[in-house]
């Protein structure tokens, strides 16, 4: 069985506890601890370990699907998580150390790692796959253009809807640098564009 750990805030804890029926309860292992010094909006942190089929079918109905970017960042900061290990999972490079050093000059890598963790959760819920990320340099100015985070399994319309939600949430949470420097890319959309299959409504 696959297990997934998520961290959620007090409000969401109450919501999720209400939502689970008694027969599901034994599938949940809970552990919580007080982290009052963190301050608002997360005054309590709870770790839930669910089997993924339960968390995604039930939790996605009661939690905002985009509720945990900052929580994911807090988790990295609080637990001194090895950011490099998270980046290594997704970085598309054969020269990891050099590439991450270069990346650190461009973006706060902790913020990027939190985005990757959070985005992977969203992708699982929506049926997409996070393939990895890489730094893109502008072909004319030879300067960093953006960090492309590549997803599979989404077409152009899904891409449009996803970035609207994701970027809005990132900005709401005050992580503007991340909103500006990370480009979410649904690679399957390019095939759709070449075929012209996304144009049906446009041409009608």
């Amino acid at each position, binding site marked *: 069985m696959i297990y997934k750990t998520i961290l959620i805030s007090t409000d969401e804890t109450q919501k999720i506890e209400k939502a689970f029926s008694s027969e599901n309860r034994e599938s949940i292992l809970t552990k919580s601890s007080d982290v009052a010094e963190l301050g608002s909006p997360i005054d309590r942190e709870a770790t839930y370990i669910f089997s993924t089929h339960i968390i995604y079918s039930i939790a996605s109905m009661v939690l905002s699907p985009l509720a945990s970017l900052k929580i994911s960042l807090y988790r990295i900061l609080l637990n001194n998580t090895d950011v490099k290990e998270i980046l290594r999972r997704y970085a598309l490079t054969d020269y990891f150390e050099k590439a991450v050093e270069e990346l650190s000059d461009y973006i706060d890598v902790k913020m990027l790692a939190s985005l990757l963790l959070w985005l992977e959760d969203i992708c699982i819920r929506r049926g997409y796959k996070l393939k990895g990320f890489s730094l893109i340099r*502008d*072909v004319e100015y030879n300067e960093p253009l953006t960090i492309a985070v590549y997803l599979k399994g989404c077409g152009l319309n899904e891409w449009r809807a996803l970035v609207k939600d994701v970027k809005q949430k990132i900005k709401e949470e005050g992580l503007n640098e991340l909103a*500006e420097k990370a480009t979410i890319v649904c690679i399957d959309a390019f095939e759709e*564009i070449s075929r012209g299959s996304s144009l049906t409504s446009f041409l009608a």
Partner: protein
Amino acid sequence: MYRCIRRDQPRLKPHELLSLIENYTAKYSSTLNEVMIRRIISMIYLSLFNYWAEKIYIRGRRGEDFCQDMFRYSQFHREMISHGLDHVMFILYVYRTASDHYILNPTYIELKDPNWKGIRISVEINFNVLLEILKLSRELLKALDEY
């Protein structure tokens, strides 16, 4: 003596240009060859880039060079994707790059930094793509009008 004439009214609105291209492509699609499609895609991207740059200049932001009126694609890209236009900006950038810098058609583009591996994207410059670019340009133009 050198002097820079500041601009406080927009003169680089691409609305008419886009309408002209849309009308032309609707009427004369069969006359468009690959050279024309490539030039149109490039023109669309740069006209939107100019419009954005002029808008921020008028608002008081300054760029580089003697008259501080030169801005970079990366700034354009960053500001637009922060508004949830990742799909528009990435697609326009990829096809504009293919149109201006790549010779084969179809081809593969692997945008990346030398220390990184990119994802190989299959890119074909054709009439359908042009229509898609026009559609996305309208999406970007709407955002720029409200910017």
